[in-house]
C-alpha cells in the first residue's frame, strides 16, 4: 500500500501540489485524472521519488520515502515498475535486451535464465515475435507492451504508468488498459495510473483521484463517478458529447 500524506511541491513561485493526501491499495488499479497542468505528472513523479516533496510524506508499506538513505531509496525503487508516456525504451537495445535489462542489473541469473524470464513476460503482454527487434522497428502499441513487460519483469510491488494509452488507437488503448488491470490483479501489485483517457476511467478505475489546481478535488471509483454531483468532475469527465449522453442515459435509467 502507498500512503500519501499532505504533500506539497513548488517550482520557484509556482505551487503545483498544495496538500494532496490519499491511499493506494494493493491489487487495485488506481487512476489519477485531471486537466493538463493540474499536477498529475508532478504527483506521480513525487510518488516515484524523481521529485522530492517540499512538505508531507509518502510511505510504501510503512516505509517513509524521505526518511530512507540514498541506497535504501534506490533499493525501494527496484521494487517499482514504471511505464512512461513515451515508453522510454533503450534505443540501443533490442526488445529482449530492454526486458532483460533490470534482470542483468539486479539479479545473478544466467543469460538463459534471463531469456526464459523475458520470454514469459513478453508472452504475457502478447509479444512473441519481436524479441530481436529494436524499439524503432515496432509500433507505438508494441512499444507500450515492451515497456509493461520491462516494468513487471522483476515482479514489482508497485507499478506506475504515465498516460499508458496516449497516442494509441482506441482498440489498442483498451488492450493496454486491460493488460495493466489483469497484471495488477495477477501479480497483486499496487498500480497507479496517470491518465486523460475516459475509457480507462470507466473500464479499470477501481479508485480514481481527480486533481484540480494541485488539490484533490474528488476521490471514488468508476461506479461512483457516474453518481457524483461534483461539478468539476462532471465537467471534466463528461466533456465529450458521447460521455454526456452515456451519463444522461445512466441517470434516466436510475430514475
Amino acid at each position, binding site marked *: 500500500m502507498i500512503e500519501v500524506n499532505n504533500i506539497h511541491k513548488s517550482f520557484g513561485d509556482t505551487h503545483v501540489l498544495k496538500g494532496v493526501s490519499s491511499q493506494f491499495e494493493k491489487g487495485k488499479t488506481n487512476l489519477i485524472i485531471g486537466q493538463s497542468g493540474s499536477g498529475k505528472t508532478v504527483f506521480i513523479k513525487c510518488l516515484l521519488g524523481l521529485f522530492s516533496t517540499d512538505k508531507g510524506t509518502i510511505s510504501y508499506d510503512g516505509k517513509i520515502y524521505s526518511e530512507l538513505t540514498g541506497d535504501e531509496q534506490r533499493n525501494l525503487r527496484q521494487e517499482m515498475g514504471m511505464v*512512461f508516456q513515451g515508453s522510454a525504451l533503450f*534505443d540501443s537495445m533490442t526488445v529482449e535486451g530492454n526486458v532483460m535489462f533490470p534482470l542483468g542489473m539486479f539479479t545473478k541469473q544466467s543469460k538463459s535464465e534471463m531469456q526464459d524470464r523475458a520470454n514469459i513476460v513478453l508472452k504475457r503482454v502478447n509479444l512473441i515475435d519481436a524479441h530481436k527487434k529494436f524499439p524503432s522497428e515496432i509500433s507505438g502499441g508494441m512499444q507500450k507492451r515492451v515497456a509493461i513487460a520491462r516494468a513487471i519483469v522483476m515482479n514489482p510491488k508497485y507499478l506506475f504508468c504515465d498516460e499508458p494509452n496516449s497516442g494509441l488507437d482506441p482498440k489498442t488503448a483498451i488492450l493496454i488498459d486491460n493488460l495493466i488491470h489483469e497484471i495488477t490483479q495477477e501479480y497483486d501489485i499496487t498500480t497507479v495510473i496517470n491518465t486523460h483517457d475516459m475509457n480507462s476511467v470507466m473500464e479499470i478505475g477501481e479508485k480514481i483521484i481527480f486533481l484540480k489546481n494541485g488539490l484533490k478535488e474528488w476521490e471514488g471509483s468508476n461506479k461512483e463517478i457516474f453518481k457524483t454531483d461534483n461539478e468539476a468532475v462532471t465537467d471534466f469527465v463528461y466533456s465529450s458529447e458521447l460521455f454526456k449522453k452515456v451519463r444522461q442515459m445512466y441517470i434516466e435509467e436510475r430514475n
Partner: protein
Amino acid sequence: MNYLASIGSYFIMIKEVFKKPTKWSVMKQLILKEIDELIYGSLGIIIFISFFIGGVVAIQTALNITSPLIPRNLIGFATRQSVILEFAPTFTSIIMAGKVGSYITSSIGTMRVTEQIDALEIMGVNSLNYLVFPKIIAMLFYPFVIAIAMYVGIFGGWVAGVFGGFSSSADFVEGLQLDFIPFHITYSFIKSIVFALLIATIPSYHGYYMKGGALEVGKASTTSFVWTSVVIIIVNYVLTQLLLG
C-alpha cells in the same frame, strides 16, 4: 552566479559518478562499447588530421628558413617540437571535443529527453555511474590516441619535408633527434590524460542536465563543445606553466 552554480553542480555530478557502482559484468560491456565508440571510432579522423598538420608544420618551417646559416635539420626539430608539445595533445583534443563531445552530449541528452534516464533512476540504477563512468574509463585510453597522433604527425612532416624537396631524410631525422627532452613526452601525456577527463565529463554534464526537447539537444551539443574547448585551452595554459614554466 550561474557559472558558479554550474561549476558546483559539475563537481557534484563527478562525485555521484563514483557512487553506487553498476554491476561489473554489465559495466565491463559498457566500457568496451565506449572504447569502441570514443577511442577506436576516432582513430581515422585523428590519423588523417595529424598527418596533414605535421606536413603543414614542416612546409611552413622550411619556407621560413631564408638564411643559409640556419641548418635544414631545423625542419625536423620544429616539426617534432610542435607536434609533440602542442598539436598532438591540444589540437587533437579540440577535435575530439567536437567529435566525441558532441556525441556524448547528444546521446545522453536524447536519453534525458526521452525519459530513458528517468527509467534508469526508477529501476534503482545510478544513472550517472551507468552513463558517465564507462566514458571516463574509456577515455583513459586517450593517451594511446595521442601517441598515434604524434607518430603520424611527425611522419606527415617527414613525407612533406622529404618528398616536397625541403629537406633530406637524414637532415630531418637528425632534427628529430636534436636536443630531445624525454620529459616533453611525459608532459604531453599528462596533458592528454587531463584533457581526456574533460572531454568525457563536460559533455556528459551538458547532456545529463539539459532540459527541453530535440532543439535543446542540439543547443546543448554546441554549448558543450564551446565549454570543453574553452576549459581545454585554459587548462593547457595552466599545465604548461606548471610543468614547463
